[in-house]
């Protein structure tokens, strides 16, 4: 059912090195031949297309401007199964939601390159009059329709494709005038697929990054973005940032200059602010060691990525708080959710409301900073001390090559991701929320964190385990998965049990 893999003639030994021009030309012609709409990609026309877009519709420029002005942009998710529904959605997000960046989420068949199934999904959606796909089948509709989507809005557009197989979707979307693409070889392969080896995911994204570098050579800067939120389930910042740094090194090696990093919010203000600063700092530190001094690496925070409450009022609090966190943390953009998150894919109106709720919160919090706060400075230093030993070990395992090191490190469990569906990831590392509300590591698996760091995590987590009467270990991790989705009356009871003197009984 899947489209055929890379032909042997275009298969090179895995390394982080830039794909040579002649080889890349062959890889492209093979790739574009995999589905009829691929033939519509004309690189010269694509360059012209981007040159004709006004600067405010080019995401790379908008991200740089937002960073320079210390703005926090908003960007929702959103994708429906037919062109008409998708256009209407994007216009609603642009006009009613005031989205700074307009998304196109592809459906899960497209993500897995099951284009024939996606075709059926389009037909079913048209027949039923409602979307039967969870996103827009970008490849099936092809370039002409994608261009019309871009023309229907007055903002930059980003492809959100949750896939390890971005090559054809990316070619078509970028050629049509999309100026951003979310996805990376390490993060998505570890988080979004069961059978694909990490190596293949890295190769697939090296293709996309190489394509973006080809546009760059012609003066068209496109935005690439890394999904460091991983499985979206209580990812401690250090684990996210390790993948951010490694994916960033791989992208820079192909020639990418505008590379965003995304992290899910922990929901602890200080930890999120520290993570935002240190993520960018660590990326720049390791880029500089490789001689890359001109890669722009803005950080995006994402609204809570775990399970959401059923209650719309509780969800509204998560939306507003999520905007607040992102603004104070200094994130260049925030990726929003909606009050429908617990039920599934939101209506365009609910999506627009989530954007406006978030936007108001950003406005209210926009001047607040944590610089100098001792807890903030301590947390930043802690994250640095967590990230460096892992990244250094991975690079050492690859004899300096980030691609080879990553593959070996996953095999050895040195790199590990909580709650991973991928068979090639050990997924022994287990996170949980500690007594202060920060995400920490209950069980590091085989990840080589320094001993004193793990002792600190354990001490914080044991405090919570004792307070809440939960066994320290996997139970604490499971309780942390559900916590935020619990009814508010359980999380913060309004029935006081006091004795005659007013003390807690």
């Amino acid at each position, binding site marked *: 059912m899947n489209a055929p893999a890379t032909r042997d003639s275009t298969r090179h030994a895995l390394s982080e090195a830039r794909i040579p021009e002649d080889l890349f030309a062959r890889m492209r012609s093979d790739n574009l031949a995999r589905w009829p709409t691929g033939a519509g990609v004309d690189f010269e026309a694509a360059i012209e297309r981007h040159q004709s877009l006004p600067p405010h519709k080019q995401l790379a420029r908008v991200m740089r401007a937002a960073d320079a002005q210390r703005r926090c942009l908003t960007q929702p998710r959103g994708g429906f199964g037919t062109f008409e529904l998708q256009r209407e959605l994007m216009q609603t997000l642009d006009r009613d939601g005031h989205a700074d960046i307009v998304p196109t989420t592809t459906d899960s068949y497209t993500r897995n390159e099951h284009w024939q199934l996606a075709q059926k999904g389009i037909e079913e959606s048209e027949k039923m009059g409602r*979307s039967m796909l969870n996103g827009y089948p970008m490849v099936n509709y092809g370039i002409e329709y994608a261009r019309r989507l871009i023309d229907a809005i007055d903002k930059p557009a980003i492809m959100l494709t949750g896939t390890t197989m971005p090559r054809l979707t990316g070619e078509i979307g970028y050629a049509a005038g999309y100026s951003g693409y979310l996805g990376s070889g390490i993060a998505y392969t570890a988080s979004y*697929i069961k059978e694909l080896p990490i190596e293949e995911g890295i190769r697939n994204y090296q293709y996309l990054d190489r394509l973006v570098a080809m546009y760059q050579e012609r003066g068209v800067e496109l935005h690439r973005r890394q999904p460091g939120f991983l*499985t979206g389930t209580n990812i401690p910042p250090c684990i996210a940032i390790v993948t951010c740094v490694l994916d960033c090194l791989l992208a820079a090696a192909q020639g990418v200059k505008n590379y965003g990093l995304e992290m899910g919010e922990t929901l602890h203000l200080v930890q999120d602010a520290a993570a935002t600063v240190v993520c960018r700092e660590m990326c720049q530190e390791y880029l500089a060691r490789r001689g890359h001094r001109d890669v722009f690496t803005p950080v995006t925070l994402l609204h809570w990525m775990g399970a959401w409450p059923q209650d719309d009022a509780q969800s509204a609090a998560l939306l507003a708080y999520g905007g607040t966190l992102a603004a104070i943390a200094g994130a260049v953009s925030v990726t929003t959710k909606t009050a429908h998150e617990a039920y*599934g894919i939101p*209506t365009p109106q609910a999506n627009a409301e989530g954007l406006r709720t978030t936007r108001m919160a950003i406005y209210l919090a926009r001047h607040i900073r944590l610089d100098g706060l001792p807890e903030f400075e301590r947390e930043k230093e802690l994250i640095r001390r967590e990230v460096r030993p892992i990244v250094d070990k991975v690079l050492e395992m690859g004899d300096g090559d980030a691609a080879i090191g990553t593959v070996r490190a996953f095999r050895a469990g040195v790199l590990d991701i909580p709650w991973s*569906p991928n068979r090639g990831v050990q997924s022994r590392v287990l996170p949980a929320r500690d007594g202060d509300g920060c995400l920490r590591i209950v069980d590091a698996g085989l990840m080589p964190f320094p001993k004193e760091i793990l002792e600190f995590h354990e001490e914080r987590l044991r405090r919570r385990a004792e307070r809440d009467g939960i066994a320290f270990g996997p139970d604490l991790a*499971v309780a942390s998965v559900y916590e935020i989705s619990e009814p508010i009356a359980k999380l913060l009871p309004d029935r006081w049990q006091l004795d005659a003197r007013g003390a807690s009984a």
Partner: protein
Amino acid sequence: MSGRMRTIVTGVIGSDTHIVGNRILAMALEKAGHKVVALGALTPAADFVRAAVETRADAILVSSLYGQGELDCRGFRDLCVEAGLEDILLYVGGNLVVGKRSWEETAQTYLEMGFDRVAPPGIRSEAVIEWLGRDFAARERGQRRADP
């Protein structure tokens, strides 16, 4: 609760990678004394049925979180029947449709597809284990399943 150890197939259907709740469910089922055949994320319908035949399973628990479950689950009961599993207990649960439709409407859609129980978003493992206990007991009394 029926004492005999049961074999239960779990997994996330279709092109869906949401594995967390499914894995927690598998952990809880094992703790409750069941034998769990966990197929993980991204599992085609046919793989559930094949695994159920191979392991002589008593129930198949299908998870879907990404909205496309309606397309993935169509014909699931027929696949079971074709494989000689006419009476296998079938549950489905998660975020089962695209958009905010009423739960009654969603549940009815899946009951008509031949699922014995439809679990709403956010359901906890304990509730599923209780259903299984009552349904297995009902089976021993010759009923299709216990009352809702």
